[in-house]
């Protein structure tokens, strides 16, 4: 049984740990399109997969956020990756599995997953 006592334990653990998170503005951002077109195409499990993977790998300075319509409905689910100092990379037709690869290859190992990018989709 899940209990409110468990939530208190999470609070105490979080309060007890030193916050190593970098300044929120400076980190890498992953943005998921969550308008009707995105949601209908499967953006909800993509968002959850990204949040889970960031938590699992304990990536401290990565922010996963949501936005409305990115404007290419037929290519949804779409995610955008903003690494400071680099050009934005747009990934299209995402799935939870592909999203996990974006984390491991692009975010962790700094190698964008070319085959999932919008420029490849247009070919």
């Amino acid at each position, binding site marked *: 049984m899940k209990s409110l006592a468990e939530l208190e334990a999470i609070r105490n653990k979080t309060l007890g740990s030193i916050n190593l998170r970098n300044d929120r503005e400076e980190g890498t951002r992953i943005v998921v399109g969550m308008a009707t077109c995105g949601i209908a195409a499967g953006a*909800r499990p993509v968002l959850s997969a990204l949040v889970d993977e960031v938590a699992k790998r304990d990536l401290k300075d990565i922010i996963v956020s949501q936005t409305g319509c990115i404007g290419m409905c037929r290519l949804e689910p779409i995610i955008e990756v903003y690494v400071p100092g680099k050009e934005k990379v747009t990934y299209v037709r995402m799935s939870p599995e592909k999203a996990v690869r974006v984390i491991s290859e692009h975010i962790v190992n700094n190698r964008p997953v070319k085959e999932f990018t919008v420029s490849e989709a247009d070919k």
Partner: protein
Amino acid sequence: MKELSLHILDIAKNSTAAGASLVEITVEASHPDNCLTITIRDDGKGMSSEFLARVKDPFTTSRTTRKVGMGIPLFELSAMSSGGGLDITSASGEGTTVTAYFALDHIDRQPLGDVASTLTVLIQGSPAVDFLYRHTVDNAAFELDTRQVRQILQGVAIDGPDVIKWLYDYITEGINNLGGNLI
């Protein structure tokens, strides 16, 4: 959309986009009445009566990235194709209430689906907004109020990974205990 919970996510996103500080989501299933009612109510900026009169038309939107708004028309279509319908009331500056009802046993009614995922995605996307979720199946009820969660968290972020995971499990269990996952 494959699940009603995805419509709930989409319609509640209209509420957060409208600047709501509290979004109330209610799911009520009544077997005696053979009725499923889903309500999304917010205290956001609302709509003028002139705008409200044409909001069910897909060519009504305030978005700029495309010319059609699909969220409300799709939810209405889903309700109408399962023996129900959709009502919207709204007042400028006061808020909006969207109510969809369905015949519980209609063969074309979509399953409710993963509401816990919808709620955690809403909280993750709008951590400053409060959500009140009420789910009833006949006489059994489950409720989640993020204002209560915040009281326990005492300033710890509600969108932190451990809290989101706890919320997901807590909501899933609460709904399963009602048999709400079978709706």
